[in-house]
């Protein structure tokens, strides 16, 4: 078994424009999707959602607002799944509700080193 990191990227600022009903329905889709992975005993860690905004610290004490000012897709959260192959991880990621808001899932194997 290997652990794979799911990184959820989307234009999360678009969320703010959605109605409470829409947000509730999106939350349900996320819960049903994560619940489905957990029901297959393939969820290593539900992970976390990330707040909008942040700081990036660079050499020489240079601090900037997040790297995503220019990028539409900002990192909105992460989870860890536990499966045998990256193909299986990708199959799980295919059900992610992030696509409904035009986002993406980056799938990365966790290095055991």
């Amino acid at each position: 078994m290997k652990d794979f990191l799911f990184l959820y990227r989307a234009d999360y600022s678009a969320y703010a424009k959605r109605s409470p009903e829409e947000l509730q329905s999106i939350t349900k889709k996320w819960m049903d999707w994560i619940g489905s992975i957990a029901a297959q005993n393939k969820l290593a860690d539900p992970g976390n959602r990330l707040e909008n905004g942040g700081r990036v610290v660079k050499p020489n004490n240079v601090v900037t607002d997040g790297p995503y000012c220019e990028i539409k897709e900002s990192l909105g959260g992460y989870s860890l799944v536990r499966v045998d192959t990256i193909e299986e991880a990708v199959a799980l990621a295919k059900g992610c509700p992030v696509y409904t808001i035009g986002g993406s899932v980056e799938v990365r194997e966790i290095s055991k080193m």
Partner: protein
Amino acid sequence: MRSATELIPRLFRTEYSKIVAVLCAHFGIDHIETAEDIASDTFLTATELWGLKGVPENPAAWLYTVAKNKTKNHLKRNTLFAEKIAPEIKQTAPLNAEIDLSETGIADSVLAMIFTICDPVIATEAQIALALNLLCGFGVQEIATAFLTGKDTIYKRIQRAKEKLREAKIDIAIPGADILPRRMESVLITLYLLFNEGYYSVSGEHPLKKECCSEAMRLTLLLLENERTNLPAANALMALMCFHASRFEARTNQTEDLVLYNDQDVSLWDQALIEKGCFYLNQAAQGPLLTKYHLEAGIAYWHTHPGDSREKWEAILQLYNQLLILEYSPVAALNRTFALAKANGVEAAIVEAEKLQLLNNHFYFVLLGTLYSGKDDKKALTAFEQAYTLAQSAADKQLIQKKIDQLAAQN
């Protein structure tokens, strides 16, 4: 007034474990057997005397006094005690210390015993056997009959557990505040399993099964009565037990067959217990910690609402999602998929069910059969037949055969 023959078995159930707990707390873990001997001897004396002279006015108090005197005599005459044990226990319990059989003394001792028996050094199945024996006053033979095992197996299991407690030198005490939360976890798990053992086990109907549940509830209540152990998780567990127990009368019919949830007579559900469950669930809703008992109590709460509503099954589905994220179990995975069928539709549930691949679990094939029924009866039949092959108990096989017959009748 009740006759002695009627009263003694009842008192034995309620008082034996209290006397054992108080004496264990007094003597220390090394001398569980001494405590048990004195408690048994007390009841033997009661059996002999009450038959001849009649039952005393306050039987419980009489038992406590006799137990106290027997303990004093034991201490006096036992030279082994004087030479070997006394120096040992002097540090913890001075010889002249009064044996505390007051109401709070008993409650504290029993609570301390719960923590001792639920110490993680003992395996869970041994904890349950030991709890039934020492905390609930059930005999080895009774426990063996109820769990369809031999008397020797249970006896050895209990002896080994006591041995382990002695070796590990487990204190009979309510743990200090620093380790209490962690120790509470194993106490709650044991009480939860004790309840489930009575509630879910289909291995034959035995009166003890139901008593497992009421004893688990009694012991959980004891936790709630002490402010140190009256924690949200314990309240959530109590709520869960109340909600489940509310369906006791409805879940078996006159011939003692299991009646499934959907077929139950709702008027038999115990509303008073449901209200109690709601009370404890509210008590549990304090603090930041969301335990599996909270989630399971939430699921059980929704099951006290009869019928199918969208709101009910959506709530149950989300609680199962959270439960599975917290801790995977095949049972939760199967129940989640059933809730999904009710909330999101059968087609979606079939897709999810096929992913579970619990191929050694007969409940998995029961679920598949249920979902496919009316959609694809051929697949439903194959699933039920697979379930029948995998099922172990006669009761399970019987329920599955009923499903197969129903399907065959429709096609």
